[in-house]
């Protein structure tokens, strides 16, 4: 089949002069610039666009607007792209999906004949017995089901991004209602964001070539000309932001809209939202209503008027209002034969001229008729139509066959109202219009246009103005002239709506349950009228349960094509008095690629003020939490040796640093630490552990008293944010008066340590560094290499040393000065690798590494930091309870008896049974063997029973070591 293009027309969006080529299933297809994949394929004579989900039936173009599931294809490796909205790009590769070996001959279409295997709810019923059969069946089903295939080898393409926007009023939908609303609101000075999912504003007017009356000064314009005029008015208003080709996929609390524009996710905060999302047609239920060649009227119009593609050669138009008549006119104008117009109305209201005109053109006009079936094997070959009686019931024996290759359905439409429900409105069934319509809108939400159920342009335009005025007025109530204007429009609007309702006659529901022929309700999930009737008979007689049982409305179109029919069918068989309600439409309304939600791929990392020095020194960097730290500059063992024998320097800027200042600073610290700090003398440092109220360790660090009311705290790397919040939390609402300031980013810190540290460091400061003047656990302010510094004499690595805190901007200067002063002593920088060995040799615990969410200080070998004799502190009660019940296990130092290397996480084995775990371990050059920390049972901790560590399946003998492996008396530390 090949289709000719229509001659150029001003409504067309394609460029007739410019051709593009792409490939479809390996074949070259010619397109015109502006074509979508679907319009180009259609023009090239393709009619089958996909195979259906369950039965693998051929499916053709249905909606042409990205609403239905029929044209999902793989485009350049991305599965399930909607071909009817995806523009053609030169050289793109398009593949059909869900068909094997090809769209034309899909072997799995055999399932269509064995549909008894897949009754409604089949996954609860079929293939369950015999049991052995299920694994086979499952394999087959998994292969046969599903949509598209993800190429797991493909590299993510990236390019995703997030954007945050704020606006006064958001108008969703760029059709006549939305355009009018945006214009009106912007006129009152509001910042308006207008979002439309099409590349060009104008909505359905873009593909209307008929003229409109009764629309004021614009009367007499054709649809597409009116679209242009409305569009130009809006784009010339500077306070309207237009987002085209963008979809609002969800409405969330706080006026947040999720908007997807290509690969961008826009978080749009809006004060008011005007929902002008319009409506969409969905197929009537009749036999073979899924056959390629059955198309929605709006889809036909799009092909005709946007892409200049002949949708068929001989058409039957099925309708229930005048839209079908104008469509017939337009088809005739485009040189397409119209075999018949099938109108379900009993009596036509007016416009007999057009009837006559059509008849003169050879169109058979059948009123009070409906469609019963489409005929054809792989494509429509004719329509079976049936007359209706006054009660809208068919006379089946009077049905007639009309040959045709195109069936246009202008039968049912439903508001695109998911956003209404998500924005807090209700959707209530309206019996006159046969649709679920927005009701009880919250004060910040407004609706206009087809979404209100009124498909009538004069009404739409008034509704749009009204919504725009109201939204703006609710934001800027000072504009008093607006309120009388609102009243006038309100009356005008109501009159038009009433008129519309009076003439409205929904298309009759004809499908029936006793046929073996397939009448599809849900084309996504291949669910028929019969399936739903049976589901109700099986007891799922409420629309939400029927949905879950049958899976209708759970396909790619998310119920756009089936929710209303299903609800009506459910009501019909459940005998409900049309208590029809729609199932809940949760976000996302349209499929959102995970990449869009994830956004740009980035991993933030923190650099210390000395970062560039490490890089210049060629350090091997590692990521610790979000910090980049040097692991080693040479090797950990070499660096270890240098610190033990000479002097080393390490960047410890990643330590959390807090200042606590105020008259109650000491009281606050007494409350949150297990230790006492009010007794700490100015100029002294004390180690502190923080617990939560159950006695679990949450942080540790040093506390230095700089003045009576001024303390300097260090916290575990990465935990400072938490500690800051923790301190503030325990202060909130109490009489404690203190300030907590996070200094982490503002200070560079380094630790110079080793037997020669004093000789090196004393070259850089006037401060007396002798042990008598500056003893272990003392702190002083000093000037170091010209920089103001805070010096803490502590020894995490077990050597004479100072922790030096200077303003971040002085970090490099001080580092360089130390390196220069140490050159004669062969100072070397050391990294985290060496530090781990050094601290393990001193049995120093790292909170968060050696402890976990169940560790308390009593069991972690820190009884000495818990001062039960002080007043209440956070964790006291919990720790008392732990003390009463006695320890269950303990953190101890251990050494392996023989050679071998343990590592964190390995099992501690007692009497052949796992009984604990290794927390940290390293090879100690000092001890000449592997040493570490491990959680062991109490009897092991007291040294009364031996234990092993399971290393790669074999148990290595280990001994508990009570004292530090290195300098157990701390003489070197204090010297």
């Amino acid at each position: 089949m090949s289709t000719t293009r229509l001659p150029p027309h001003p409504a067309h969006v394609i460029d007739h002069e410019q051709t593009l080529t792409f490939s479809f299933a390996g074949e070259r297809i010619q397109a015109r610039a502006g074509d979508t994949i679907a319009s180009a394929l259609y023009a090239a004579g393709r009619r089958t666009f996909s195979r259906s989900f369950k039965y693998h039936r051929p499916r053709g173009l249905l909606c042409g607007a990205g609403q239905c599931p029929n044209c999902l294809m793989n485009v350049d490796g991305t599965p399930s792209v909607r071909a009817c909205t995806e523009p053609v790009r030169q050289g793109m590769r398009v593949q059909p999906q869900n068909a094997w070996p090809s769209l034309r001959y899909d072997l799995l279409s055999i399932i269509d004949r064995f549909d008894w295997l897949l009754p409604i709810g089949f996954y609860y019923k079929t293939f369950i017995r015999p049991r052995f059969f299920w694994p086979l069946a499952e394999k087959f089903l998994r292969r046969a089901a599903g949509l598209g295939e993800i190429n797991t080898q493909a590299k993510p393409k990236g390019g995703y991004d997030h954007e945050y926007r704020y606006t006064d009023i958001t108008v969703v939908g760029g059709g006549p209602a939305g355009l009018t609303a945006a214009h009106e609101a912007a006129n009152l000075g509001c910042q308006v964001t207008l979002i439309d999912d099409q590349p060009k504003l104008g909505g359905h007017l873009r593909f209307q070539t008929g003229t409109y009356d009764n629309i004021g000064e614009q009367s007499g314009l054709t649809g597409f000309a009116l679209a242009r005029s409305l569009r130009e008015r809006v784009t010339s208003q500077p306070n309207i932001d237009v987002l085209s080709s963008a979809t609002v996929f969800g409405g969330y609390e706080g006026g947040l809209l999720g908007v997807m524009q290509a690969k961008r996710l826009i978080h749009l905060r809006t004060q008011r939202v005007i929902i002008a999302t319009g409506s969409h047609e969905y197929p009537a239920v009749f036999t073979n209503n899924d056959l390629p060649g059955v198309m929605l009227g709006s889809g036909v119009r799009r092909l005709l008027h946007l892409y200049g593609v002949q949708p068929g050669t001989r058409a039957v138009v099925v309708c229930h209002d005048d839209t079908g008549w104008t469509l017939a006119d337009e088809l005739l104008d485009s040189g397409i034969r119209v075999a018949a117009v099938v109108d379900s109305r009993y009596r036509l209201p007016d416009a007999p001229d057009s009837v006559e005109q059509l008849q003169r053109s050879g169109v058979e006009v059948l009123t009070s008729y409906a469609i019963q079936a489409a005929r054809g094997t792989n494509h429509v070959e004719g329509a079976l139509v049936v007359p209706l009686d006054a009660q809208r019931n068919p006379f089946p024996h009077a049905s007639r066959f009309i040959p045709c290759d195109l069936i246009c359905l202008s039968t049912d439409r439903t508001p695109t109202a998911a956003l209404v429900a998500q924005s807090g409105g209700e959707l209530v069934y309206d019996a006159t219009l046969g649709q679920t319509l927005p009701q009880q809108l919250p004060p910040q939400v407004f609706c206009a246009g087809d979404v209100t159920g009124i498909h009538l342009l004069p009404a739409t335009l008034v509704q749009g103005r009204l919504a725009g005025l109201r939204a703006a007025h609710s934001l800027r109530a000072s504009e008093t002239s607006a309120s009388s204007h609102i009243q006038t429009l309100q009356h005008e609007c109501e009159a038009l709506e009433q008129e519309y309702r009076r003439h409205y006659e929904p298309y009759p529901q004809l499908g029936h349950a006793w046929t073996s022929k397939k009448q599809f309700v849900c084309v996504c999930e291949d669910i028929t009228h019969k399936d739903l009737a049976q589901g109700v008979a099986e007891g799922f007689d409420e629309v939400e349960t029927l949905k879950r049982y049958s899976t209708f409305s759970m396909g790619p179109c998310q119920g756009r094509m089936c929710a209303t029919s299903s609800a009506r069918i459910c009501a019909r068989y459940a005998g409900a008095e049309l208590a029809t309600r729609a199932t809940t439409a949760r976000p996302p309304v349209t499929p959102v690629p995970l990449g869009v939600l994830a956004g740009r791929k980035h991993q933030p990392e923190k650099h210390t003020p000395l970062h560039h020095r490490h890089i210049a020194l060629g350090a091997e960097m590692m990521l610790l939490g979000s910090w980049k730290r040097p692991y080693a500059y040479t090797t950990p063992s070499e660096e270890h040796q240098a610190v033990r024998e000479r002097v080393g320097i390490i960047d410890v800027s990643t330590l959390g640093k807090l200042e606590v200042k105020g008259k109650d600073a000491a009281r606050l610290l007494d409350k949150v630490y297990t230790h006492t700090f009010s007794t700490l003398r100015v100029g002294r440092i004390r180690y502190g552990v923080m617990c939560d109220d159950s006695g679990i360790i949450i942080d540790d660090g040093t506390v230095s008293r700089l003045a009576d009311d001024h303390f300097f705290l260090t916290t575990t790397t990465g935990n400072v944010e938490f500690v800051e919040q923790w301190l503030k939390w325990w202060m909130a609402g109490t009489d404690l008066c203190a300030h907590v300031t996070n200094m982490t980013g503002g200070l560079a810190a380094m630790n110079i340590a080793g037997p020669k540290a004093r000789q090196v460091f004393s070259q850089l400061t006037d401060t007396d560094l002798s042990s008598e003047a500056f003893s272990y656990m003392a702190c002083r302010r000093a000037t170091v290499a010209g920089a103001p510094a805070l010096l803490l004499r502590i020894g995490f690595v077990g050597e004479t040393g100072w922790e030096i805190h200077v303003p971040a901007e002085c970090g490099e200067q001080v580092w360089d000065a130390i390196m220069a002063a140490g050159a004669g002593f062969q100072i070397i920088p050391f990294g985290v690798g060496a530090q781990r060995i050094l601290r393990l040799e001193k049995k120093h615990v790292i909170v968060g590494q050696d402890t976990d969410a169940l560790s308390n200080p009593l069991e972690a070998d820190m009884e000495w930091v818990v001062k039960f004799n002080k007043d209440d502190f956070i964790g006291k009660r919990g720790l008392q309870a732990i003390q009463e019940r006695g320890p269950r296990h303990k953190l101890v130092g251990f050494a392996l008896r023989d050679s071998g290397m343990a590592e964190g996480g390995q099992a501690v084995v007692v009497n052949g049974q796992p009984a604990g775990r290794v927390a940290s371990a390293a090879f100690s050059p000092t001890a000449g063997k592997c040493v570490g920390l491990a959680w062991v049972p109490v009897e092991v901790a007291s040294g009364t029973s031996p234990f092993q560590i399971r290393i790669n399946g074999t148990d290595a003998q280990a001994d508990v070591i009570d004292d530090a492996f290195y300098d157990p008396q701390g003489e070197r530390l204090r010297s």
Partner: protein
Amino acid sequence: MSFLLACPNCGERSVYEFRSGGEFRQRPPASVSSHEWARYLYLRKNEAGETTEWWYHQLGCRSWFLAVRDTRTNLVKETYEHD
């Protein structure tokens, strides 16, 4: 969750800027029974309705305040500094 929360210092901001600190509870005096203490440690009301809870304005003024929020609708009735 995308509701707006009014920080008593900074005004109305997106909830993304805040960290939730959970239900507001009074820490019992040390003298209560173990049973009471265990309730304090491990039990939460988890009300479907109005709840007073702690919030911390992490990406703002970095202070704690209380908010009365309906957990069913995420509507925040009031926010205030604890005193």
